[in-house]
């Protein structure tokens, strides 16, 4: 599965794509199957929103405790917040999806981010 992420231009906050909008919680993100062309299409739409978001890229997901979680450790930290301040970032809200992300394994380099760097 995949999700689309970016940072919001005005404040740098991590956001996720959902049905044409950017939402703040990973739990609300729209998910696509790996081979779903709609993911790439959404990425194209996201990148066209240069006054709303920056660094738009697709991330890979894995299953964790019955939920989907970002595959890479880096993306899980983005979706949660820094591990040294558990009350900072989106993790402060708690909930099942946050816990699933915190318990997820399968750390890997952020594939989407690598593509982003290569394109630059």
């Amino acid at each position, binding site marked *: 599965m995949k999700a689309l992420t970016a940072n919001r*231009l005005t*404040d*740098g906050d991590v956001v996720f794509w959902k049905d044409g909008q950017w939402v703040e919680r990973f739990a609300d993100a729209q998910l696509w199957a790996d081979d779903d062309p709609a993911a790439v299409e959404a990425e194209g739409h996201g990148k066209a929103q240069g*006054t709303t978001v920056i660094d738009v890229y697709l991330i890979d997901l894995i299953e964790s405790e019955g939920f989907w979680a970002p595959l890479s450790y880096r993306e899980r930290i*983005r979706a949660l917040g820094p591990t040294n301040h558990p009350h*900072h*970032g989106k993790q402060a809200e708690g909930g099942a999806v946050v816990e699933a992300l915190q318990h997820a394994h399968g*750390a890997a380099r952020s594939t989407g981010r690598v593509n982003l760097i290569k394109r630059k």
Partner: protein
Amino acid sequence: MYQYDTVDRQMLADRTAEFRGQVARRLSGELTEDQFKRLRLMNGLYLQLHAYMLRVAVPYGSLNPTQMRKLAWIGRTYDKGYGHFTTRTNLQFHWIRLKDAPDILDHLATVDMHAIQTSGNCIRNVTADPYAGATAEEVDDPRVWAEALRQWSTFHPEFSLLPRKFKFAITAAPKDRTAARVHDIGLVLRRARDGALGFEVIVGGGMGRTPYIGPTIREFLPANRLMSYMEAILRVYNRHGRRDNNYKARIKILVAALGTEEFTRQVEAEWAKIGDSVDLPDTELARIRGAFTRTGFETLPARSEVFEAAKASNPALARFARNNLKPHKKPGYAIVEISLKGIGETPGDATSEQMEAVADLAERYGQDDIRVTHEQNLVLPHVKLDDVAAVWAGLHAAGIATPNINLVSDIIACPGLDYCALANARAIPIAQHIAEKFRDPDRAEKVGELKIKISGCINACGHHHVGHIGILGVDKKGEEFYQLTLGGSGAEDAALGSSLGPALPYEKVADAVDTLVDVYLRERQDGERFLDTFRRTGVTPFKEAVYADAH
């Protein structure tokens, strides 16, 4: 400290106004991100994992209480109530909004602060000895020269777009607290037999992907020729430094490629062409020097009975004094180091309340002087021994009286993967786990001086190459792993650490450090530091112990 004049203030006002316009144009879409990115970076504004990060310059690590209070206020108003002091003696705010950045720069400007020279391929903030003006070891006050370098380098049109960033360190004491030999240029002030002041000029040191201990290209540069010689070095670098490959663009690569002799020859040839027209006039040097001349010292006995009595009745104060107090040049005074390495805390972090507490103490007991060290601690350089107990009490109340300066839990750690967009692995939790292992202060004191430095990626912001124990986070088959190096030093006995062995997984690093310390305690002789023992025994006993499980 140096006082801004109207020219300095106007320059800052112009700069913040310009940036406000640039941000507005970015938000309106008039500027693309590619166009805007280099502009925001020139104002210290990065995009990290969770938000923008603003890196505020603390020139040569020197702050007054008003500035510290402003940083505290910005932390409370625009961040999450804290700031992070860095290995370049700057302060980073990690939760900044782009739309707030111009207002923050305006607030900084009200106390003569800014974010200039904290990013981009320019001459960055100069590191100076945090004990400057307070230690008897120094032959001159390095801040005078650091300030001269700041004025020379700020917006220098020729050196604003160098092949890569450029970092200076300057010290005037034989004990190097600036890591001068791993800077692009390290300057060590010396006095010749005839009393003349001059600089040892070290060029081409550095860490990162390709670490070097910098070679000395001039043993004694007459102090009044500093600017022209620096201009010559920068000019050779600007002309021949590589711009085709970011990883090979630092001056250390040029010096290594040309060889020290040829590089020096080119610098000397360029210097001869420049002449002395850019050297600082004596009158200007005297003007700058005047800003650093401190006259407020009282004539005091070397021993304070008040302080001795306080120590005798308060073991915690006595421990603090053993580890955090350093000798001052004036009898009856001390240099007080404030550790930002509370056990289990984030190295270098200070809450707004802690910053305000330090500002209050500096104002009341410390002649309005605060320093930031490249080891991510703070210093009150001028405290009367009679007042140390009160300073300790204030620090203790603020939760920053940790008595561990230069000890095993006084760890440098970069922000790592918890914040930084470049990192491969976390650094902060590794530091926290190691510090927890040495929570017992008796054990930490028994171990003695041990400098652990942790970086979350090869860029080495955490100075891992020069740690007595260096720890580098790497991405190994998608997992956080850590390569350990031993025997590095960023001090006057500078050395690059050598590899201990295969990288260790996240959960094994703190135990490995514990094992390394046990080996040291077993092997050490006659009061050797960890570094001395390692240099005598070599890596073998350490390696055998850490990898025993693997055999």
